């Protein structure tokens, strides 16, 4: 006789129980692996955010914005932000001026999905380029100095500038001389056109693997910090501002030495010309480097350091350079200083000009900070 429909065994219950156990086990395994995966992802994000924060600290260091950071008031800040090139994170931070030469950089890095944030910081120091100045004019090659030219090695501060007391005088001219008792240029006699201590001296700058020896900074350093890189040509520089704010992006704006309390009074750009440069009148301050010949004319006034790798010529109504002029004259061409040209040594103009082109560097040790 067949069994009735109401009869049942234990198999169904066992199968249901087995399925339940297997379900619980697989669910738990899934949850565990999912949890582990989430924690791992979170940790990867933590590492991304940490790397982004470190990159953020380096960001202002690698592209030091001298026009912005060097002019920060004590205690004031400037912000910056950027993305990592590989898309693994982003950073944002600030540069705060703590003292005359000290800054703190604080950066917050975020992971690619912006879920994790980490902070890092460092203390920076403003390091100015160093150029050793040996005389008001350092020059080599055939030179003709006109009768009305004046070259002065006595340390003097530019008019209306705030400067420390004057330092010792330098020679008016330093140039190579076959006989140290015979002036190696034609034209004006040293006793009439030159003032200095001594009036002139024999010497020349060497050229090493990094180019002309400037006593610290290399030409590459100068080019790296240049606010304006020119292709040469003719220019009439002058300060420009818009509503009282100095227009530093203007290639013709080389600062305002005439009005040091004006909008561009603290603007000391490094200008690097990669070709021959003709400057006709106008004015400027900072550091001017010409990888070619420099011709100044018609009353051009410049305060700071001028480095010319080619030859230098001054013509027309007297131009003035206050600070120092270094002419390498690598092509050994004839050079003339004519008209009422004035070249005056000024330690203050040299120091302030070089400081204006300073850039932030990490302290030599103990620069990095953990921010909490």
């Amino acid at each position, binding site marked *: *006789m067949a069994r*009735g429909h109401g009869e049942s*065994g*234990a*198999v169904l219950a*066992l199968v249901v*129980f*087995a399925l339940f*156990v*297997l379900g619980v*086990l697989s669910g*738990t*395994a899934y949850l*565990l*692996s999912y*949890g*582990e995966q989430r*924690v791992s992802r979170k*940790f990867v994000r*933590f590492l991304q955010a940490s790397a982004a924060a470190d990159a953020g600290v380096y960001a202002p260091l690698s592209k030091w914005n001298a026009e912005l950071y060097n002019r920060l008031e*004590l205690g004031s800040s400037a912000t910056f932000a950027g993305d990592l090139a590989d898309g693994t994170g982003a950073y944002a931070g600030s540069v*705060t*001026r*703590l*003292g*005359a*030469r*000290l800054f*703190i950089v*604080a950066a917050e890095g975020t992971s690619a999905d912006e879920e994790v944030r980490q902070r890092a*910081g460092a*203390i920076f*120091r403003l*390091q*100015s380029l160093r150029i050793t100045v040996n005389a008001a004019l350092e020059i080599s090659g055939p030179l003709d100095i006109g009768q009305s030219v004046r070259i002065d090695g006595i340390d003097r501060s530019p008019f209306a500038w705030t400067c420390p007391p004057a330092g010792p005088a330098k020679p008016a001219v330093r140039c190579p001389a076959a006989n140290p008792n015979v002036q190696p240029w034609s034209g004006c006699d040293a006793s009439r056109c030159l003032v200095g201590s001594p009036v002139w001296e024999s010497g020349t700058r060497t050229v090493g693997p990094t180019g002309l020896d400037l006593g610290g900074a290399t030409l590459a350093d100068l080019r790296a910090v240049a606010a304006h890189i020119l292709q040469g040509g003719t220019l009439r520089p002058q300060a420009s501002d818009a509503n009282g704010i100095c227009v530093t992006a203007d290639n013709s704006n080389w600062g305002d030495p005439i009005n040091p309390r004006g909008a561009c009074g603290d603007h000391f750009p490094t200008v690097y010309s990669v070709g021959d440069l003709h400057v006709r009148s106008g004015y400027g301050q900072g550091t001017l480097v010409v990888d070619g010949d420099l011709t100044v004319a018609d009353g051009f006034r410049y305060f700071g350091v001028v480095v010319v790798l080619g030859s230098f010529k001054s013509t027309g109504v007297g131009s003035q350079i206050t600070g120092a002029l270094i002419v390498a004259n690598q092509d050994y061409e004839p050079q003339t200083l004519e008209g009422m040209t004035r070249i005056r040594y000024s330690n203050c103009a040299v*120091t302030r000009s070089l*400081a204006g082109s300073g850039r932030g*560097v*990490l*302290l*030599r*040790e*103990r*620069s*990095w*900070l*953990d*921010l*909490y």
Partner: protein
Amino acid sequence: MRVRGFTLVELLVSMFLSSIAILAIGSVFLTGLRSYTRQIEQVQVRANLRLALATFTRELRGLNSGGQVGSDIVEMNRSSLTYRAHRSTYFLCTVPNHSASTVTVWQDQQASLRQIEVGRDSLLLFAENVEADHDDNLWLAAGLTSVSTGRFCPGGTPGIRFFVQGLSDMELGGVYRGAAVRGFQLTKIRLYTDAEGRSWVGLQELRPGTGWTITQPVLGPVARRGLRFDYYRSDGDFANQPAEVARISIKVVGVGDTPAGASTSPVRDSLTIHVALRNNPRQS
């Protein structure tokens, strides 16, 4: 109608089949349970290793092994490391007061894990000396005798005044506004064993007068020799002296928290971390 029962043979066969099914299911269940437990252990061990990576990186990367005021690494060996740990950084809001031997810092401009404490921390003070010169920058070591707070900074803003000792007038003369003051505490990371015989990585701090604090667990449990430090110079060779260290390698072997006497051996996993000392002296 009479309903037939099971025959003895049917009953025996069904009992046999049922027991096989129950054993199979039980076996799967137990295996799954063991696997679950080991996975939990594995997760814990990996979490520990991640913690080690985060902790050691943050704690050790700020060291300076070859500084002007001696190495931050005080004692180094395979199983422990004693070092000057950076705990706080402040910045001067005015130039130091030479006659009172005080330096005043901004209260709201700091990077500190905790506030500086007299008797617990030593100080390093940044001296620029000749401002235009990068080569004469120095860190000066100073003792801290007392601390007071008030509106000491320019404009009446909140400041903290540190009374320092061990610095001459000439040294303080090279310290300018904005200079950093960093607080350090002598700290030791080491392996230790608890009452149950399990090994842990712990941290101790030196308190003058009372000596080393009791060890605080940082991470664990770890294997019996589950913490190993190796020290490298910048050229990649092993460093023999603290002043030579440019990189520290830390190997952590984590173990699961399996009770003693368990049938299975505990889960083990390891991680080696390399931490470069980024506050070491650099070429200017």
